[in-house]
């Protein structure tokens, strides 16, 4: 961070960016203190869940350009891992959070390794299949552990002894948004690293990426594993909030919604994902009164957006944050 803050120009832009982040964070921090209505706080919680899921899909779809229409399958693995281990063995949710992430990541690794070389629409179709197979498996109640169509219920609240028990809407709200905040920080760092660049290179031109020394297979798998782990975390938090998980929460339609979040916001753009998630999760609430027409309006909005802003509402701005030339700084420039 401090490496970029040495000149006037870059400091100015950095601070401006930071101001934006601070204002947004403050808004999220103060929201439950101003709005006392639990309903709105719950809506904001689901906004957070969708943001986390959107960020997780953004790694795969936005950064690397891999069409993944079965992303909810990974969230389902995370949610069911939490649900089953908590209800059967009473393992605390906070312990299960990383376990769910690892379970989803391992699942993603096993499932995507054989198909990782597929391109574009071929990969898309296989991931649809994967998402559906996960859902159908859960319905079919393998070994009697997933509870079939009814799902698993009676999941505990997340707690650390008696010190911290997350048992009401406001606490859940902070729980999810702290998770989102940490994720955003990590992803911003990743975007600006050799890993983030490698991902973007693969999206831009896979052959040139390979010829630039990037192990395409490894970085595609890394994106899937990381995306699945985050989706697993989101699924786990979702399970502990609702206290019940059932297969219908992880339908193909939900995966499509996640896809929309990334497309609406802008591929690979973190603020864009926030906007996309807001559109997907807040839209149905705002237009509740015209319930019958809301999918119609939503569809029309998507079509219009693709016509007038194909890059998304807030596409990632490259080259806008201009770091100072290291050559000039160290006096090594020949100019």
């Amino acid at each position, binding site marked *: 961070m401090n490496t970029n803050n040495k000149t006037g120009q870059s400091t100015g832009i950095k601070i401006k960016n930071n101001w934006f982040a601070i204002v947004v964070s403050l808004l999220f921090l103060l929201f439950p203190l101003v709005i006392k209505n639990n309903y709105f706080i719950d809506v904001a919680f689901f906004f957070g869940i969708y943001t986390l899921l959107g960020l997780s899909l953004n790694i795969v779809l936005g950064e690397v350009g891999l069409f993944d229409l079965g992303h909810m399958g990974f969230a389902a693995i995370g949610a069911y891992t939490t649900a089953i281990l908590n209800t059967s063995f009473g393992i605390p949710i906070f312990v299960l959070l990383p376990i769910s992430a690892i379970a989803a990541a391992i699942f993603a690794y096993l499932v995507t390794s054989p198909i990782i070389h597929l391109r574009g629409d071929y990969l898309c179709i296989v991931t649809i299949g994967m998402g559906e197979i996960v859902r159908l498996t859960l319905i079919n109640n393998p070994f009697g552990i997933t509870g079939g169509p009814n799902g698993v219920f009676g999941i505990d609240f997340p707690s650390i002894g008696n010190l911290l028990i997350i048992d009401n809407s406001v606490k859940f709200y902070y729980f999810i948004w702290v998770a989102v905040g940490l994720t955003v920080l990590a992803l911003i760092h990743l975007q600006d*690293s050799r890993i983030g660049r490698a991902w973007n290179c693969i999206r831009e031109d896979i052959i040139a990426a390979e010829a630039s020394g990037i192990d395409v297979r490894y970085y595609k798998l890394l994106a899937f594993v990381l995306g699945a782990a985050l989706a697993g975390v989101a699924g786990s938090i979702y399970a502990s909030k609702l206290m019940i998980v059932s297969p219908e929460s992880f339908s193909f339609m939900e995966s499509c919604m996640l896809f929309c979040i990334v497309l609406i916001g802008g591929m690979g753009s973190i603020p864009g994902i926030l906007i996309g998630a807001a559109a997907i999760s807040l839209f149905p609430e705002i237009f509740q009164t015209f319930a019958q027409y809301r999918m119609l309006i939503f569809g029309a909005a998507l079509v219009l957006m693709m016509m007038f802003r194909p890059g998304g509402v807030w596409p990632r701005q490259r080259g806008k944050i201009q770091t100072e030339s290291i050559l000039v700084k160290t006096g090594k420039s020949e100019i």
Partner: protein
Amino acid sequence: MEKEVQELKETMVSDTEIVLETDNLTKRFGGLVAVNRFDLKVTKGKISSIIGPNGAGKTTVFNVITGIYQPDDGQYFFKGEKISGLKTHQILSKGIARTFQNIRLFQNMTCLENVMSGQHARSQSGLWPSIFRLPSQIKEEQKIQEIAERRLEQVGLIAYKHELAKNIAYGNQRMLEIARALASNPYLLILDEPSSGLNDKESEDLMNFLDEIIKEDLTILLIEHDMNVVMGISDWVTVMDEGKKIAEGKPEEVYSDPIVIEAYLGKEEEEEI
């Protein structure tokens, strides 16, 4: 024992002399033999060229050497080490960097990011150092940026470093691609028709640039179908036609070789039909 030492010495000598060697290289696409028992030797510190009419199989040779295609037959060696069968990214880390005939840049990334990406194989910060931005990662990023800026300065594009690659002029895009390849600090630089699409002034500048960078412990192998362009700068020319090597030698020898002239004129006849 003495014989072994002798052999070892011989290989060591040939290691320093021959950078790249292909042996009996063959690549078929269905019934078409694109490259037919092709032998090539590239000498250290020199500019070697492969020329030949369109469709002679020059680019296929490059694609096989850089691991994009797997050969049907034959082997190839880099600095005496067998590299056939390696993947493209492994070949780059061995020290062979390339450019493409139809420029392949990371269009929606800035020029600086393009050149920084070229150093991927020369850096190693993993997932966790990147997420937590550990001091080692920050230091490495700075080094990557410094090298990238130096390369951009070298090709004269430092002013465009924050421009998206797709927004700069065609000639500049070519130079950017070369800068990206150079950023990986290669031992051998392979250029696929670097002057195609450039005007006379630009291709002359390019050739002067190649003459200059060859001095920094580099070997260059380039493809051209325009004979006149390579004659001036090449130290060694190999002529290909229909997948086969038909001639090789110093530029002036090749230029007057009747077989070469026939290959080129023959192609024009075919075009008329």
